[in-house]
Structures are given as C-alpha cells and as structure tokens.
C-alpha cells in the first residue's frame, strides 16, 4: 500500500521502515498519512523508525531537483512539518540506526526520543559540504549535544561512528542485537502515559527557547492537565489504598 516505506502495527508497537534510501516528496506524503493514522486511530504506545539493513537513510533525493527548474523552498517546509509532527506524536519515538544515516536521515533521527545504533552506524550531517543546510537540525542538534559539538558536526560534516555518537549523546544505546536493545529501551520507557510523555517532551523541547517566567506558566498549565488524567489519578489512588 505504501511505496517508499512499510508500516506495521503489533500491539503497542508501530514500526515505520523506510524502504527507499532517499527521501522524496512521496515519502513525505506517506509519512503524513501514517501520522494521521497514528494520531487518529492507533493505540500503539511506541513508534519505531528504521531503515533497510545497513542503511537508515541517505537523505534527500536530489533526483527531484532540476538545475533548469526554479528551486522550490516549499518542499523543505513540508519536510520540516512532517518532522515536527513526528516529534509531537503522543507516543514514544525510537529510531534504530543500522549503518548509514546521512543528511535528511540524520535530521529525522533527531526527532526521536531515543536512538538505538548498531556498531556499524555511520551518522553524518553532510548538507553544508553539499552547499545547503541540514534543515532544522541547526535548531535541534545544538539543543541535543551542545553548540560546540553541533558546530563541528554541521559545519565540518564528519562521519560519526557508534562510539562517538554514544559519547556525544546523539544515540542512547549501541548494540549488535537490535531486537534486544529495542525491547530494553521500550521497557525503560515504562508504561508510556501518552499525555505525560507528550507534555514532558514539549516542555523539554521548549526549554532552550523559553525564558523562566514563561516556562513556569507553561509548566503549570501542562501539570494541571497531567494531574487530571487517569494515570496520575490511579497513582494517587494506589497510594491512598496502601
């Protein structure tokens, strides 16, 4: 049913597997359809993003650009919109990076809440060497690993292996056994209360760009919502029963 990816849902886990090594507008459209489904109908608590064996993604498909045609900025906007939507899904987002993860692939990796890598992973923000920009990785990467490291990764475009990615905090686990690492990671996320997960992630993502006075207002609004949801009410009920 999809041409650029496969999608399967198994109990609590929804898995998106990129079937093409390059990101094109068709893939953006299909990811949008999947987000619609995940927001509207899905009871999955975890979304796993992965690629083919040995390749997560090589980034943008340059075949969609023609030197004799006007350049279209709106395609980049659509890409950013789908990244932001994935980033806001009311699920835990886990990326599995086995092998090459370049350009747009590395950008997509940054919207995950946790990243599992295999020892052969090869992460590179290669856009600046190719004469363009790594999307909103300029925004996300600096927050994720610090401005100094982000400058080196984005401006010098080094290839980052598993050990360095782990030490930078770019990935959260390196393992040869992907299945085992995935189940450990899912276990670590615990019960995944979707409201608490979504609100916590949003406040964290906003933390660098919000001043304290606004942040505390935002926090109180979010906390008021969280403490009126079933999971917290269950927590205090269990506590009362003890």
């Amino acid at each position, binding site marked *: 049913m999809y041409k650029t990816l496969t999608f399967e849902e198994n109990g609590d886990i929804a898995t998106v597997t990129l079937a093409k090594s390059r990101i094109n507008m068709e893939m953006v459209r299909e990811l949008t359809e999947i987000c619609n489904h995940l*927001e*509207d109908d899905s009871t999955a608590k975890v979304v796993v993003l992965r690629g083919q064996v040995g390749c997560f993604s090589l980034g943008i498909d340059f075949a969609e650009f023609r030197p004799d045609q006007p350049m279209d900025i709106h395609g980049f906007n659509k890409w950013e919109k789908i990244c932001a939507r994935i980033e806001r899904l009311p699920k835990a987002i886990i990326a599995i990076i086995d092998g090459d993860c370049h350009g747009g692939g590395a950008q997509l990796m940054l919207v995950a809440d946790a990243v599992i890598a295999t020892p052969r992973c090869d992460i590179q923000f290669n856009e600046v060497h190719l004469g363009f920009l790594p999307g909103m990785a300029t925004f996300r990467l600096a927050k994720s690993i610090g401005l100094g490291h982000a400058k080196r990764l984005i401006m010098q475009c080094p290839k980052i292996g598993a050990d360095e990615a782990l030490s930078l905090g770019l990935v959260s686990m390196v393992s040869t056994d992907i299945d085992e690492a995935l189940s450990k990671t899912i276990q670590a996320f615990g019960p995944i209360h979707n409201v608490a997960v979504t609100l916590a992630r949003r406040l964290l993502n906003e933390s660098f760009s919000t001043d304290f006075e606004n942040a505390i*207002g*935002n926090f*109180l*609004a*979010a906390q*008021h919502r969280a403490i*009126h949801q079933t999971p917290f009410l269950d927590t205090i009920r269990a506590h009362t029963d003890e």
Partner: protein
Amino acid sequence: MRSRHARILSVGTANPPNWYTQQDILDLYRVANPMVKSMFKASHIQGRHLVLPEADEAGVPQEDQATLLRKHRVWSLKLGRECIEKALTDTGLSTGDIDYLCCITSTGMMLPGLSAMFVKHLGFRVDCHRTDIVGMGCNAGLNGLNPTANWCAANPGKLALMVCCEVNSALYVYDDTMGTGVVNSLFGDGCAAVLLRADDTDGPTQPLPLPQVVDFYSHLIPQAWGAMRYNWSTEHGKFSFYLDRDVPYVLGIHTETPVNGLLSRNKLKRRDIDHWIIHSGGKKVIDAIKYNIGLTDFDVRHTVNILRRFGNLGSGSFLFSYQQLVNEGKIRPGDRAVMMTMGPGSTIETALLHW
C-alpha cells in the same frame, strides 16, 4: 445561488484615545500594596486603552457608580459609532442598510439598551430588528454571533451587524487589594463591530473570499458557576468583578470538550484548522489552552499580541484577533478557523469559520 451560511463581510474596532502602561496605572492610582505592584509588573500586558478621570495631587479620584454608568453610556456611543463606521468603510453601505442589530455589553446596565441608543444616534432605520445581550461576559461575542449568523441564514441577502461594546474602565474599583488588583491590571476598553450577510455577494474590494460562519458549539461548566461574577460591594457602593484564581486552569482543562465536539460534528481534525481566533483572556488561560489542546505559540500569536497591546477587551476581543489575522494576509481560500471565547458561567464558546 445563495449561501446557506452567514459570511463575515468586515470588522471594525475602536478604542478610547488614552493608552496607559501598567506602570502608568500604578502611578496614577498610587498603588502601595507590593503584591498588587508585582502583579501589574508580571503581567503580559504592555498597556491598555482606558477612560480614566484626570489625576489631581491625591492621584486619580474615585468614581461613584452613577459616574461609571454614565462613562459606560457615553463611551459606548463614541466607540460604537467609530467601530461601526470602520466596519462599513469600503463596503458602500451605511447604517440605514442594516436590517438586524445585535449589541453586546457586560460593563454597564442601560435601559433602553445600547441598540436603541445606536438607532437613535447613528442612523439605523427604526424598523431595524434588535437584540441586546447584556451581562454574559467575555464569551458573549460568540453567544451573539450565533443568533446573528442564524438570523442572516434565515434572511438571505439581509445585513446584520453585531457590536461588542466594553468599557471595562467603567468597572474600576480601587482599594489596593489583590482582588481588585487582578481586575484592574487585566481589562481594557474597546469596541468591535462585525458585519454579516448570507449570500454570495462579496464586498467590493475583498481580495479574498469571505469566511462562512459554519457552526457553533457551547460548553458550560456549572461546577465553576461562581468563578467569575459581579459582586455588589457595599463598601464601595458599586459592582466589583470577582475572578477566581483557578479560572485559567478550569477553563483550560475543559477546552477539549467543545473543540472536539465542534470538529467531530464537522468531520474535522485539529490539524485541519489553519487559524485559531481565541479570546485574549489573560496569559494563564492562553497557556492552559495551548497545553490542553496542543496549540503552538504561532497558533496563539494574535491572541497574545492583542492581550499585550490592549489587555482583556471582553466580548469584542476575539474580533480584534480576527481583524489582525485578516490583515496579516496569510489566509488562503479553503482555510478553516476555530473561534473560541471563554467567560463567566463558566463557559467556553466556539465557532467554526470556513473561507
């Protein structure tokens, strides 16, 4: 071919000439209570248009209830006239062309009501149909838009005008307490008029199709009945507005219900909504709405900006945001907007627009 729904043809707004920063108000009223001072300073309001008496050496003199009622009447007429003229500008229409007039206010009691005063002074026909909605609070703009839009749908081709007139400075009670401080630091004066008609005749110079008012969805929160209310203050001999400190959160947590109701009835998802036109109630209630229905700072940019420039303008506030959205020039044919106003009851009112 006639359209089934009323369309918004134009909006006009007006404010009194004097604009006061929060610091101006603290100085004018010689506010001494440090808690009240810090509340003014923490406010997300830069300043507000208000009608205040001249200060003498003792500060701003107190106004009794009779003075406040007169202020409401006089400024409702001045600002009403101005916002109605602006709404009719470029339409080739005059007040004599209006067939239905709906006036809204919660900041002063009059009998005869605003609509009769407007007919007397502003050139409306004496056979113009009238409705006055009095005392419904900040949400009342949508409580008025609902019957106004329905009147249009029932009378295709006829013109209806709704005017929200709030002279919040006619509610000023000053006693250096936190209770009145909250009110005095939040509300501003402003009127807004909106012109509607149900047919396919767009205004003469409209660069865009005009939005249809498609649907409404209300939600009352009876358990928060007393959270916002007028009290009679025997001490001051005037009405005093009371605002419970939990109001922003209570409204926030109930926001999903009417929004989901409105959208699901129209087979829409939140992602189908391109614009959010939300009453600028205060910083906390805007935050609560953002985190309860997942809106971004971009979604609430007009709401926040109107709050910053004007304070809480009561029932017409959402029309100021609507006007700013239209002037921004980002609306495209096919876009949809949700309008949302919140206020005493406690209540959340919503409407769906479709361009």
